[in-house]
């Protein structure tokens, strides 16, 4: 079991690092999409199929699209795609910060006595999820729905030029 985990981890982290260090924006977005897929694979491995499904659907499906559109809309010329990583000191400080955070978290994890319950993979069915969503978490669902609506309307307004009176109908 662990080997799969390690593999998935390596792939995900690898593509993430590659995405962060590419000059070309398009490459970054596409590589990140691969990273998201890796995350979905992890969800699958852990037994949360619906989460993996949601991840692929939304992240790989919608968000990457949005990102690609944004990239295309905001580029000035073919040449000027993205400036490379910041010169010298900033990159160093960034990596140091990241390293510090990783170090702290890893040391916390390593130190802690997290007794992992060797339990069998829990079974969560979609119907279970559905009844939960309609039951105890219905309010949250509604709130998140409203949130999504508001956010997307706002995003449209912002992107359309800020202050346009008509709201384009049909949220994605």
């Amino acid at each position, binding site marked *: 079991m662990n080997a799969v985990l390690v593999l998935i981890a390596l792939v995900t982290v690898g593509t993430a690092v590659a995405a962060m260090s590419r000059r070309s924006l398009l490459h970054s977005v596409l590589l990140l999409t691969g990273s998201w897929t890796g995350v979905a694979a992890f969800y699958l491995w852990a037994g949360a199929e619906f989460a993996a499904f949601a991840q692929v659907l939304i992240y790989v499906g919608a968000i990457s699209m949005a990102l690609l*559109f944004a990239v295309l809309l905001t580029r000035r010329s073919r040449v000027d795609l993205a*400036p490379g990583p910041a010169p010298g000191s900033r990159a160093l400080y960034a990596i140091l910060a990241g390293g510090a*955070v990783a170090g702290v978290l890893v040391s916390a994890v390593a130190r802690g006595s997290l007794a992992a319950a060797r339990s069998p993979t829990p079974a969560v069915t979609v119907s279970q*999820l559905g009844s939960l969503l309609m039951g105890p978490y219905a309010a949250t669902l509604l709130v998140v729905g409203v*949130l999504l609506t508001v956010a997307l309307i706002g995003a449209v307004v912002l992107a359309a030029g800020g202050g346009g009176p008509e709201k384009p109908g049909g949220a994605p």
Partner: protein
Amino acid sequence: MSPLQLCLVFSSVLFAVGLAGALARSNSILVLLGIELMLNAANLNFIAFWRYGPSPSSAIGVIFVIFAIAVTAAETAVGLALVISIYRHQQNIRLQEASHLKG
């Protein structure tokens, strides 16, 4: 190292990568990508604890992740709309130049 610890280490590393990337790059979209990575790392944590944590039978972990993904989607949309606004304003999307809120 238990599987839980492995998962946690995985998510920590992913988080650190996202952080480093967000700090290092000056392109707004890349910064947003870094933030996406960090969010994903947090979601990983949820699933890990749901799978190996004290009460694995409840579906709270999954529910949470679903909601997190939904919110993240909204946030990404808004963020990208902001990027487009910034682009319209200053013709590029270098984050350093968008420092009009300087005190």
